[in-house]
């Protein structure tokens, strides 16, 4: 029990010593001064123990004034380092603003939108302001967050242009967007129309038959010129066969010579066969 008491006492003493040999400040005030006369800005007091809960709002034409009295071990003194550091919480980007310090420790700094880096202006997050006081020697330096600054942007004033600096790193993935495949109408419609087209064939035949078409002269023609009629009609069928093969498997250079050969046969046999047809007409048989 006694031990813990003395330990606590020692701790207290230690804390007292530590507190004694450290930097601090008094009379910390932050005020926003509007450019136009008549508008009264806000003024708040802050200390190093508890940061202000409400963010200080800073308009695009306003000036943020920070003043404090730096103290070393309770004594007013000028530290070598007296900074207000504004920090953007998301990216961790920091900008230091040195305070102008007098011999008696009175320090002031004024910040406007123009002094801020572009990155601060384009973000919507509040900036965290901390006071850093430190100097050579054994006194413990102070780094205390004191308040947040919310930048009020004037919508009429365009933001300064900012381009993110190029950094080596992975880039965004790109996946090629393929053109859509050609589309066919529904199969049902294709089938209906194909059937409609095919239906014209029997329709044609029936109409021919109704008009009296027949093959009554077939035996006569074969009898008169059997070879030429057979070859002529066969060559016409063969030509269709060649076209069919060209459609299914042959290429043009395979098809052309065969077409030529079949055409010669058609012409040679055709003169005889069609001559026979003519002779029938001249005889008044058709």
């Amino acid at each position, binding site marked *: 029990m006694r031990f813990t008491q003395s330990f606590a006492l020692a701790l207290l003493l230690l804390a007292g010593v530590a507190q004694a040999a450290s930097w601090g400040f008094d009379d910390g005030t932050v005020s926003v001064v509007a450019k136009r006369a008549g508008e009264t800005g806000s003024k708040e007091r802050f200390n190093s123990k508890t940061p202000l809960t409400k963010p200080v709002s800073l308009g695009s034409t306003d000036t943020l004034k920070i003043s404090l009295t730096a103290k070393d071990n309770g004594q007013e003194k000028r530290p070598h380092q007296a900074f207000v550091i504004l920090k953007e919480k998301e990216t961790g980007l*920091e900008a230091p603003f040195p305070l102008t310090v007098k011999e008696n420790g009175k320090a002031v700094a004024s910040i406007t939108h123009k002094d801020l880096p572009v990155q601060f202006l384009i973000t919507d997050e509040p900036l965290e302001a901390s006071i850093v006081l*430190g100097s050579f020697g054994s006194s413990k330096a102070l780094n205390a967050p004191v308040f947040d600054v919310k930048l009020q942007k004037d919508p009429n004033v365009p933001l300064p242009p900012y381009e993110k600096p190029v950094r080596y790193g992975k880039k965004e993935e790109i996946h090629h967007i393929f053109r859509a495949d050609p589309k066919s109408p529904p199969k049902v419609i294709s089938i209906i129309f194909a059937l409609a087209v095919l239906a014209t064939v029997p329709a044609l035949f029936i109409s021919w038959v109704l008009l009296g078409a027949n093959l009554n002269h077939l035996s006569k023609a074969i009898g008169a010129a059997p070879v030429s009629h057979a070859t002529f009609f066969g060559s016409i069928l063969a030509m269709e066969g060649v076209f069919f093969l060209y459609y299914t498997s042959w290429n043009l250079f395979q098809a052309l010579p065969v077409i030529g050969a079949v055409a010669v046969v058609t012409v040679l046999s055709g003169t005889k066969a069609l001559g026979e047809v003519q002779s029938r007409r001249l005889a008044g048989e058709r």
Partner: protein
Amino acid sequence: MLRSSPLLSLFAFLLCWGAALVSAVSTTGNRLLAILDDVGEKENYSKFLGDLESRGFQITYETPKSESLALFHLGERAYDHVIFFPTKTKGLGPNLTPQILVNFLNAKGNILQTLSSSTTTPNSLVSLLAELDITLPTERTGLVVDHFSYDTLSAPETHDVLALPPPVPVRNDISPLFSAGAPKDALLAFPHGVGAVLGPREQLTPILRAPNTAYSYNPKEQSEVLDASDLFAAGQQLSLVTAFQAINSARLVLLGSAEMLQDKWFLAEVATPNGGKPVKTFNREFAKRVSAWAFQELGVLRVNWIEHHLNEVTAVNESNPHIYRVKNDTYTISLSEYAYDKWSAFSLPANDVLQLEFSMLSPFHRLPLSLDKSQSTPEASVYTVSFKLPDQHGIFNFKVDYKRPFFTNIEEKTTVSVRHMAHDEWPRSFVISGAWPWIAGLGATVTGWVVFVALWMYSAPPTDKKNKVGSKKTN
């Protein structure tokens, strides 16, 4: 012509083997030039220089005033690497002008430059750094102090010996080359150093940044009062150790504190004001890594081979064809990384990816390559990706453009043609349902034509009178 005797070939083999042994140190060579004010100063750096020598470097010591000093001999580099220790002279003389130093970098020479707050940096080096977008404090000198993380043992009053943890990478996708494997409470001593400000260039990467609360001031003029308008830079904007890697992978390291490399600080113990125990500095290992990085012993990548082929089960499936069609396709690349004395399989830093671009003017695809364990060996890792070529014909490039901080640049381009579909490679018309009416029309025409021919030739006049007259007229 020249008949080689067995003895001669043995001699040649031994010569080659010896050469290979010596050049096993760095991937680009082992001739190191050290520039000192006074050659005797090297005693201060004996451990650092000894470490370099034990890694196989042949060190030549010169002063800037030396007549014989020349970085180039007959247009070729006379040295592979240069290390500048702080010199008191204002300039470095006609043999080390900024132009020559830039040429040295262009010729793939590497530079390790050290600064010190006690000496002003020579003009020549300031100009070289300005060329690389690195700005030093005005007056060419400055001192970085931090009232929060100084070494309480050696600088309790002046706070100009920073005690910093080994640097973590600036971004989470950068390889932690300089801090990997360091003990948790390791501290770097950064005594009497100069901080630099880096411009927005992708070739520049800070290796070690100053802590948030550090700042730079001129000890001659600002020892009492630091005027608000005269602050050079503060916080993390100050880069204490900076890496620059040119597009040709030549490297320059700016080390803000030459004293870091001295024997004294290799052996010293440091402690922070937060009341931590004094620990031995991490400087020796850090100096080893920084110099190894600068002299191309660390972070050097090599492409072993590249292969691409059509990813189809066909009879003909050759490697690296010159022409492709819109089809599936596979690209494979093999990479190795060099560390001190050997090539090993390259593994990507966490959160980083190796990307393949398939591009004609602009990339059509940019895809991540993934590690193929079945093809990888301890010496080489193989990354592969399979993808469908875009439906656009033309001349395309397979491009792997892997440029990352702390790694040598890889830019591999393989050109292939992508042809369009040939006329007989499209689906046949009977497969396309929309074409069925047209095919039916063809069939109808053919049948109609054949039957018409038969009827025309063999049809007798109809017996019906009325029709007979009509048919006669038509014929």
